[in-house]
């Protein structure tokens, strides 16, 4: 870790504060929002950053793990192949040196797309691939390699979400089967990406702010929200066009995913609960006077949600368990000091 000393030294002053003072940051957030709309409940979850010491490099590397996952999913969906070998290697100074592999499951180019749909998949795949390259470039020799990724986890996840009862084979959920199924697959990731970057932004050190890390993270956050806006708009618009929830089950499937995400993150295994969920369920507007629910944000203030590192891990591991070291999309965990769920 000596190789990271430059980064660590730059980030250490605010780091200590953050590691110990996550709770006070949460209090401040609650205070800042307390007078609004008469709501005193904090719609932004109380941050619970790990109490171990961490650096800006650790925060960016955590994001890189998520970008590897998103990029592989979108690249396979758009083209039938994934990241190049040169885009998943370990930086020379990284304490993680094993380059993972991708379990493909049904991963393949989504069939029967219109030209416009293909162009949209191309765009999102390109943009997530660019984020991988960007973060790897910013991290340089400290970049972690791609961890093992399991794209066959969509099947079991859909069972856990009660979308279907078959985890594999006939009747199972396959996000690579059609454009609409792809939208549900993308939906699993996009709101999570937004909230992960929102949660990470305040963890960046003062020195990292001066170095441009914060503005870079905020810029990626915005891109993830553009993507989430695209996915939610598409699901909503296609449901409206179909005329009913029954005629377009994918909208309901997406909401089942939201419910699963809530149960994985809020109460954990000890006390399952969706109270305090950071989800906004999609709606099906049926008249010219009913609102949509494209934006995922607090009902009181229309401020986008944030998730802690732990909350993100519970979702991508598909596990509510505290102490989980991997699972789900990352069968052997993420390459990060945050790899184990702690809350």
């Amino acid at each position, binding site marked *: 870790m000596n190789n990271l000393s430059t980064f660590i030294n730059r980030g250490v002053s605010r780091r200590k504060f953050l590691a110990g003072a996550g709770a006070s940051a949460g209090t401040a957030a609650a205070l800042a929002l307390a007078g609004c709309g008469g709501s005193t409940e904090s719609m932004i979850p109380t941050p619970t950053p790990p109490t171990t010491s961490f650096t800006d490099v650790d925060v960016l590397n955590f994001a890189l793990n998520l970008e590897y996952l998103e990029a592989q999913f979108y690249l396979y969906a758009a083209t039938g192949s994934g990241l190049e070998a040169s885009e998943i290697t370990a930086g020379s100074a990284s304490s993680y040196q094993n380059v993972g592999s991708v379990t493909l499951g049904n991963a393949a180019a989504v069939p029967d797309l219109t030209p416009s749909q293909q162009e949209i998949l191309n765009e999102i795949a390109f943009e997530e691939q660019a984020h991988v390259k960007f973060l790897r470039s910013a991290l340089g020799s400290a970049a972690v390699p791609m961890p093992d990724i399991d794209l066959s986890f969509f099947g079991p996840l859909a069972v856990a979400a009660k979308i279907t009862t078959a985890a594999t084979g006939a009747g199972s959920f396959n996000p690579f089967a059609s454009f609409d199924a792809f939208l549900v697959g993308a939906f699993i990731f996009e709101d999570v990406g937004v909230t992960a970057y*929102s949660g990470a932004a*305040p963890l960046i050190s003062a020195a990292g702010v001066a170095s441009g890390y914060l503005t870079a993270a905020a810029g990626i956050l915005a891109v993830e929200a*553009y993507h989430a806006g695209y996915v939610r708009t598409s699901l909503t618009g296609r449901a409206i066009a179909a005329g009913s929830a029954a005629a377009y089950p994918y909208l309901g499937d997406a909401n089942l995913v939201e419910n699963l995400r809530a149960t994985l993150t809020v109460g954990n295994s000890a006390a399952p609960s969706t109270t305090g969920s950071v989800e906004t369920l999609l709606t099906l507007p049926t008249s010219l006077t009913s609102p949509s629910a494209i934006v995922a944000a607090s009902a009181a203030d229309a401020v*986008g949600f944030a998730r802690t590192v732990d909350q993100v891990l519970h979702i991508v591991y598909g596990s509510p368990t505290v102490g989980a070291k991997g699972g789900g999309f990352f069968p052997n965990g993420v390459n990060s000091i945050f790899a184990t769920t702690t809350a």
Partner: protein
Amino acid sequence: MANQETQLLDDIIVTSRRKMLTLGVASLAGLAIGASAPSAEAATAFYTDADILNFALNLEYLEANFYYLAAFGTTIDKANFASTAAGAPPIALSGTVGTPGTVSGGSLVPFSTIQVASYAIETAVEEGKHVQLLLSALGSSAVAQPAINLGTSFQTLATAAKIPGGSGFSPYASDEAFLVGAYVFEDVGVTAYHGAASLLTSSANLTTAAGILAVEAYHAGLVRTTINYIDPDGTGIGSYTNLISTLRASLSQAALLGAAPSAYDSNPDDFGLATFPVSLGGGSAVTATRLTDADSTNVVAFARNTTQVLNIVTGGGAVNGTTAVSPAMGVFFPAGMNAGPNGFK
């Protein structure tokens, strides 16, 4: 109610971190990781988080009134049947700093599709909540709603953008016209909050700003996606987005004082919906949509400083040649924005 927030803001108005931040953001321009970030604000020496939030409040007044008028046919301070039915409360205009103005222009859009109507209602409600949030957080420091032009301003802007028939353009004429009007605002909101994020000193305010940034980007994604669905070939309103983005990029560039005008189009900070070539997984180039407004290399959304944003929303009113003009006036803000003594206008 304001006491708690006022106290919080008093705590926030600490200049210790300010100087470091000004240096820090100024250094961003030449940094590789911040390649898409503009050189940030350097104008005012002792601005506070309240000044930044008030700048945002001016923009939210503009957006919220546009969407309230389009979706409900009323301004944000007056309830009618439509706004009440949608659960959009009238907003008490409690801000007192600066000169209060009136809202001119704007009318209910005769929506014909559920998609666009429902999006308009949702967005109106959310932008209204942003106004309320900022008013409440700023308390007695909040600026008054300035004069806002939501009528002839669009014709001025559409003409400048060279939109066909721009001198007669009304965003309230149809579903499609409304989307074009919304397009004018949403990407700008993203860049404004993005530019402000690293200027804020309070963690709580940063978290809130990041959350609002996300919502603005959701809206922008919504608008761009819907325009793409309506005009996938980019021959109608899709082509207007390119014209508007080009105008915004020019105005933004002009606000970077001292930059050569020839750079206007070589490195724009704004892209319309025109498709562009990309290489996936090392393969040969394929065509991609542009539903995300970001640079083509790192795909990090753009950020703009306050002068750049001001120059866009005033149609060039923030600069005169190579000289900054304050207060900037014109187009949407005919009398300029409201700001505190060290604020941005």
